[in-house]
């Protein structure tokens, strides 16, 4: 079975603090993809990053960084020097191959509040 767990329901930080959002996944597939999406109050999910199961290199994009560890089935997301505009709900998702399409399995999300 496929499952994504985001144990942190809500996190509040003060602007400029660093914050890490945790994501733990379960799958028996050896080939899979992991995603992070951001959902601002406007509602649409905005794609942030995609990693495949064979690439454990960490990635940095500006203030964002991602730590993928297969040994612990985790794909954590860190925001450095957080800003008010980072306030949103963040979803981690697992995508596994399928015959016709890849089905996404989402975690329940972590709501990040960044206060000025």
């Amino acid at each position, binding site marked *: 079975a496929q499952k*994504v767990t985001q144990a942190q*329901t809500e996190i509040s930080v003060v602007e400029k603090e660093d914050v890490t959002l945790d994501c733990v996944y379960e799958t028996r597939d050896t*080939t*899979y*993809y992991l*995603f992070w*999406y951001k959902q601002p109050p*406007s*509602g*649409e*999910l*905005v*794609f942030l990053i*995609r990693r*495949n199961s064979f690439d454990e290199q960490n990635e940095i994009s500006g203030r964002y960084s991602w730590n993928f560890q297969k040994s612990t089935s985790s794909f954590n997301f860190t925001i450095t020097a957080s800003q008010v505009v980072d306030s949103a709900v963040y*979803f981690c*998702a697992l*995508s*596994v*191959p*399928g*015959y*016709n*399409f*890849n*089905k*996404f399995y*989402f*975690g*329940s*999300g972590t709501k990040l509040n960044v206060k000025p």
Partner: protein
Amino acid sequence: GAGVSQSPRYKVAKRGQDVALRCDPISGHVSLFWYQQALGQGPEFLTYFQNEAQLDKSGLPSDRFFAERPEGSVSTLKIQRTQQEDSAVYLCASSLRTGGSGANVLTFGAGSRLTVL
């Protein structure tokens, strides 16, 4: 269009009414998905279209839910005889390619928030 467009953004229905939710995907995107997002939860898969063909509808909660994409572009999700448990945000997403590799990135619309009284 530039993004995935959904309408209406908000819909209030009385229990028992039928509703129709529209999704206009990115032009040229072959794959189209519908997801249901309950309050405080992540999106859950409802159904998938490849062009006009509905290839998977395993996530539709009941036979009151029906989706179509007759010309392979715009899609409509219809809910008959709405119930209170149908209250949720319905998200549409599209993807340029077909295929089940797992790599396809989905582009989501802003969703249609349905409230059933």
